[in-house]
């Protein structure tokens, strides 16, 4: 039996091949960056949600999405736009994405913040919650630096971002 894929399915499959340029275990769909995809004959328009407005990876991701979709023979034109609404939050990361972050040594963001805004994550290596926040800011806008007191490893965590 031959199941033919629709163009929309093919486009989405191509978008899933685009990974975060700095965290190569997670694709942009699992990061929660994909908005609407619309197809009008041979033109594909993709909306992406920026994680952090100043993130230098945004330009690279945009180019990579255009490249990936352009590989499809049925497509003649690809337009990628960053949109500001709905805003990306760290809750947009999928369950699969959370696992992918751990593989890279990054703790996924806490699902819920405490009522005073504080938060806690588990060490991505040993799972221990016995760790300290060294720096809320990290090597990129979306990450914080922590240290695990249990397994004595420094690690990073996705910085929780929410709209209050």
């Amino acid at each position: 039996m031959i199941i033919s894929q629709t163009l929309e399915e093919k486009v989405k499959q191509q978008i899933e091949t685009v990974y975060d340029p700095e965290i190569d275990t997670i694709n942009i769909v699992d990061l929660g960056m994909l908005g609407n995809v619309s197809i009008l004959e041979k033109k594909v328009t993709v909306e992406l949600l920026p994680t952090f407005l100043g993130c230098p990876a945004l330009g690279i991701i945009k180019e990579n999405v255009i490249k990936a979709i352009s590989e499809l023979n049925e497509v003649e034109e690809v337009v990628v736009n960053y949109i500001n609404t709905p805003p990306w939050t760290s809750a947009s990361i999928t369950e699969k994405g959370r696992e992918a972050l751990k593989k890279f040594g990054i703790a996924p963001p806490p699902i819920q913040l405490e009522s005073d805004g504080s938060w806690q994550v588990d060490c991505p290596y040993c799972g221990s919650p016995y760790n300290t926040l060294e720096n809320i800011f990290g090597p990129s806008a979306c990450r914080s630096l922590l240290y695990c007191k249990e397994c004595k490893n420094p690690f990073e965590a996705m910085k929780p971002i929410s709209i209050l």
Partner: protein
Amino acid sequence: MKITSANEVNDPKNVEYKKVLVDLLYQLADDDFLHSFRGSEWLGLVPHIEEDVAYSSIAQNTMGHAAIYYELLEEIGEGKSDDLAHGRSDAVRKNAILLEEVNGPGGWLYEEPKYDWAFTVVRNYFYEVMKKHKIESLKTSSYEPLAQVAIKVQSETIYHLMHWRTWFYQLVSAEGEARDRMKAAIEKAWRDVGGLLSLGPNREAMVNTGLIDGEEVLKERFVAVVKDAFEHLNLEYPGEPGMERGDGRTGVHTADLKEAINTLAEVYNLNPAVSW
């Protein structure tokens, strides 16, 4: 009244609205742009390595905020955002004078930089307190694309304010030189802090068009937070915020801005046609 798109702004019946919106967007963009530039000058010079990570991350986020405001201007026909950021002279800039002031004597290229960390902490704390209240107000702006941006910006700036508030409280609470230098820096910054709170000559029209809350309302919210901090830290409240060197919203600036633009636009000016 709500304006939902750039197209609607350009409807001839909204010509007055557009004029006021453009003024506000330049203020927001130029403020964040200069603030971020002064922050970037600290790279490698801050008191310790973790601060280098933190401050450069904050400056990068803030540059992203400036960029998105310049992009909103581009959308309504003001020109390309890169040109708006790099190609405008000091005479048409609308940032507050407090933000253009050098970090201290010296510089990156030719002289040893002797930047003033106390002044930087004070300026940044005041700036983030003001920004918090502006952004909060912009979330219900009549220009919906701006309201959407405000929600996004707010989610990032929570951490910025937390950061500078911590430095401010800790250095003022310390004994000896730290507290003295912080007091001197507060006195210096206070002379121009009024410019940060100004909405410029279109202040009334900004309220009437529903773009942002009134200048007095925003100022009250700013003063309430700062007064609370001063009381907690046993500092004397300096009184009415000053604007001794004038209102940057009207195009009044100092030589520091001219020099900053010459520096930050040096590469851009080599060939403005190159895309970034």
